[in-house]
């Protein structure tokens, strides 16, 4: 569904991505993990063309995304830190995005209801707490039935109950055959979500494996342990 070919990204002297090539097929739930500043968010921003690649290209359903914007109609994006116009209310933000996307289909109101957005609909974005802002981001990402979901640290800042709601929603969407890309540090949360794992370190992809092969290779049954074992044994590099 999304193909990344020899992607490079440099900002001045720092390199954020170095020769990244990946294929992200539909129907998979991919965990993008790695230490801080390893290029996860940059990779995501490249897919959304919020950052322009220095070299290389990205194909969405076989079409180069360069100069195209309509492919974003198929993407729901939940940023790491949602930043919204301060003076707009929650309902205004939702309405505006709906307007921009010219969305005509039925809205997926599941998260909207589960997070109790109705209650805060008339509140200004400025007055919301970090966690509530994350809920708005999550609601917006799922609202327009996108075929691809890109979630950057989705559970950071969410309370346990809301995290669980989001988790269940992610599993549900995965079953529908959507492509889901998640970055997270909390490896324990990813256990029964993921089908594939991409591990990045210092701007390069270290490995890209399905959960099955990962477990088979390491003999572990949990994502966090499996990755530890793999990194310790040096098999990754």
């Amino acid at each position, binding site marked *: 569904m999304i193909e990344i070919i020899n992607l490079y990204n440099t900002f001045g002297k720092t390199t954020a991505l170095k020769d990244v090539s990946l294929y992200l097929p539909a129907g998979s739930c991919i965990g993008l993990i790695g230490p801080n500043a390893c290029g996860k968010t940059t990779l995501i921003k490249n897919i959304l063309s919020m950052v322009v690649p220095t070299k290389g290209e990205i194909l969405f359903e076989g079409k180069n995304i360069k100069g195209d914007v309509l492919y974003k109609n198929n993407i729901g994006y939940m940023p790491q830190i949602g930043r919204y116009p301060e003076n707009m209310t929650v309902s205004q933000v939702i309405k505006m*995005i709906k307007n921009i996307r010219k969305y005509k289909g039925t809205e997926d109101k599941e998260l909207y209801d589960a997070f109790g957005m109705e209650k805060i609909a008339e509140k200004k974005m400025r007055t919301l707490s970090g966690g509530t802002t994350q809920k708005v981001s999550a609601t917006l990402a799922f609202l327009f039935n996108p075929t691809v979901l890109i979630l950057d640290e989705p559970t950071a800042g969410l309370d346990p109950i809301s995290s669980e709601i989001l988790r269940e929603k992610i599993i549900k969407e995965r079953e529908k055959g959507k492509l889901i890309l998640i970055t997270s540090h909390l490896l324990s949360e990813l256990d029964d979500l993921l089908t594939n794992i991409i591990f990045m370190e210092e701007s390069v992809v270290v490995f890209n494996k399905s959960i099955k092969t990962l477990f088979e290779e390491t003999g572990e049954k949990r994502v966090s342990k499996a990755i530890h074992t793999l990194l310790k044994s040096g098999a990754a590099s």
Partner: protein
Amino acid sequence: MKGITTFIISDILKNRIVLLYTLVLCGFSWSIFSLEDNVSKGILSMLNIILLIVPLVSVIFANIYMYNSTEFIELLVSQPVKRSSIWNSLFIGLAVALNAAFIIGIGIPIMIFIAPKTALVVILAGILLTTVFVSIAMLCFILMRDKAKGIGLSIMLWLFLSLMYDGLVLFFMFQYADYPIEKIMVILSALNPVDLARIQVLLQIDVAALMGYTGAIFKKLFGTPVGYMTSLLLMMFWILIPYLLSLRLFKKKDL
């Protein structure tokens, strides 16, 4: 794009600062024209407001608005909207809102108090200046990631175009007073949007005669239909060049 533009215009118009700006301009123009019997003198007083305050408010307001919209821009870029339409919407939104304030605050009183042709030139000068400085503000925003630096740069540019440029031209004129420098003077003045606006307005009232030989040359060059068109064209360049430059930079900007 239409949706974003209307959103931005309504957002700016809801802002109390623009309302205050309109009221201040209104206050200035009504009091000047009610106190001053001589229309020419009235226009001269208005000229200072149009040449100094209008560009200053336009450039600072537009610049701060851009910095405050960083989140909004980020949100839009992650959605299926072309970057060029985001930028166009911001430009049109700011230009329309600030020009509306100018037209209500100064345009209407001027239409009431002075002759239609002169009024038209004064209003056109104000509209073009407002738009030029919105365009400059957007360029400053894209050049500087830091808010303080961006606002500083836009104030510096305003200071340079509104005050320092004239000082430099005057200095140059005194230094080379013994030489026939009228043509160079004309060219130098034509390069500055504020000077262009000033000359066009002054040519509408009789003070051009007071400016001596240079005034006569100005009248000869700028007072003709060709002169009007050239001034208009140069002003357009002042709007388009900073704007297109900022658009180019925005298309490549990493958010």
